[in-house]
């Protein structure tokens, strides 16, 4: 990205027409408070003109991301640019003020000015125009969003769907170069939602800008999205078409991020509060596999997921005796493969498990596919996760 001086920063200069077909490029880090604990938002992505859905649980950093793009929040480091314009660059201290970014932002709460009429709200950003131009631009957008008849009404007197249209009109009348929508339709019923989405699509046909659309509704992801980005705890865990990203099991994604190569579905079979342990049954070929695990909340019959790191499993070539580890499981090696400096063995023991070994261990034990082995897993190497 070129230096800030060469970039025309002032939205008020030149004609009203902003950049068309500009791509949003984000690559930054930002500490934020995600509900109860601090998180680091750290991500890099590009958004082309069109709808990009940001999907994630509350506290995953979606709103913080939008605030950083709009200039309401300052990233700790990184860059944000929109086409040829740099909005933020920590390497040269460039941080364009929110008022000069030409970003359209519709807040979750809509943030309509409660002491103004519909028309005053919509015309609020047009103070740089003459009175006649302002009236003309305002009237055109009120028409486009079917709220011309409400122009003189106070915004407290109109319905939720109408308020939504006013908020959109107020942002779009300025011809923003990017549109940020923070769960804008969450409170509306499906029919009104669809009509507003149609109006928004129509507007988009003639303007072609990136639209970042935050939602935690799965239906909206499929209804709107050309692309979807899934955020979890401040990170992008998946991106692609809505179909690609929504079909991947989220829990497994999170588990794999935490480094569990083995994630197994289990049911609590017996609890031993006096020992601080319980036994879990895992369905497998030729009968269940029973594991002793640490005690967690939930009684007999609770469905859980057990995560075991491949590096936490010991492997023996004859039945071990005199061990403190409570789980000793017989099995057979299915395959064995070298990955860089470790060896990954797949072992069939009613279920399939991945076990990581050193090269030396493989050689001294003469491990090969088909060999009978015993897996040794300590109780506290079994990490229990909730099933969503």
């Amino acid at each position, binding site marked *: 990205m070129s230096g800030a001086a060469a970039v025309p920063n002032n*939205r*008020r200069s030149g004609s009203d027409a902003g950049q068309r077909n500009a791509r949003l490029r984000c690559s930054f880090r930002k500490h934020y408070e995600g509900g109860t604990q601090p998180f680091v938002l750290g991500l890099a992505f590009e958004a082309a003109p069109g709808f990009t859905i940001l999907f994630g649980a509350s506290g995953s950093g979606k709103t913080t991301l939008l*605030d950083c793009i*709009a*200039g*309401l929040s300052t990233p700790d480091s990184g860059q944000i640019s929109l086409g040829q314009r740099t909005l933020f660059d920590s390497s040269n201290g460039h941080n364009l*003020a*929110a*008022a*000069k*970014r*030409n*970003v*359209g*932002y519709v*807040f979750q*709460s809509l*943030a309509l*000015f*409660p*002491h103004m009429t519909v028309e005053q709200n919509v015309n*609020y*950003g047009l*103070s*740089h125009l003459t009175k006649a131009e302002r009236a003309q631009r305002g009237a055109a957008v009120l028409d486009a969003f079917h709220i011309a008849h409400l122009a003189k009404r*106070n915004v407290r007197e109109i319905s939720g769907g109408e308020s939504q249209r006013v908020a959109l009109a*107020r*942002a779009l009348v*300025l011809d923003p170069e990017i549109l940020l929508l923070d769960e804008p339709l969450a409170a509306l019923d499906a029919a009104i939602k669809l009509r507003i989405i149609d109006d928004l699509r129509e507007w988009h046909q003639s303007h072609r800008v990136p639209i970042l659309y935050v939602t935690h509704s799965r239906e909206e992801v499929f209804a709107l999205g050309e692309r979807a980005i899934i955020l979890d705890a401040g990170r992008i865990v998946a991106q692609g078409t809505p179909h690609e990203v929504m079909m991947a099991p989220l829990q497994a994604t999170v588990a794999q991020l935490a480094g569990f190569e083995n994630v197994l579905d289990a049911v609590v079979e017996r609890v031993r509060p006096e020992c601080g342990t319980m036994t879990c049954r895992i369905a497998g070929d030729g009968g269940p596999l029973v594991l002793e695990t640490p005690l967690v909340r939930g009684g007999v019959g609770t469905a859980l997921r057990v995560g075991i790191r491949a590096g936490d499993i010991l492997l023996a070539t004859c039945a071990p005796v005199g061990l403190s580890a409570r789980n000793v499981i017989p099995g057979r090696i299915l395959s064995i493969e070298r990955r860089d400096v470790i060896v990954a063995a797949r072992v069939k023991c009613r279920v399939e498990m991945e076990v990581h070994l050193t090269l030396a261990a493989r050689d001294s034990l003469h491990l090969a596919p088909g060999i009978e082995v015993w897996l040794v897993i300590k109780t506290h190497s079994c990490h229990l996760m909730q099933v969503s």
Partner: protein
Amino acid sequence: MAIDWQTLWLTLELALVVSVLLQIIGLPISYWIAFSRWRWKFLVEALVGMPIVLPPTVLGFYVLVALGPRSPLGRWWILLTGHTLAFTFSGLVIGSVLYSLPFAVQPVAASFAAVDRKLIAASATLGASPARTFFRVIAPLSLPGLIAGVALSFAHTMGEFGVVLMVGGNIPGVTRTVSIDIYDRVQASDYAGANATALLLLVLCFMLLAVVYGFNRKGWVLHLIE
């Protein structure tokens, strides 16, 4: 039992001058208190709030010392005008401004802080400068607080006693205010005169506070700013 009208006019003049000055000084302080993220901000808030808990004689004493010919401020004033600040109307104004500052700042800062931050953010994303955001969004939505700030600084200045006595003394037509007049009359056993004057102050203060609370009724305010 005649009311001393000269004293009453002087009191009203003092209250008016002090209220106007307090808005000029108090608004930026209120804005800063409401929106600054400085971690030591609470120290400034405590400082501004001091006159609420401090005995007026303590505040008056330090103002008197600060205005006297031995302090830099007092010397500078003498150099400028040829006379001392203590026991003058100007000195009284300075003392009263300090004494009533929390009453001008606290309601205003509280109502600024109560404005939904998303409205301020929305204003910024719509291209408005901080000044435009203040005049078009923050101030109109803080109108009850702004009115309370003006009325309370006026009423509080009208009713002060200790600071006036310490800084201004009791010079008829220059520094004698209604509250000191009442004290004088009681000392002289003129209970009828004290009563008439006290009643007048009582009614005036009630009317002022009624206006404040009246404006804080939702219907009125919304009607006014529409």
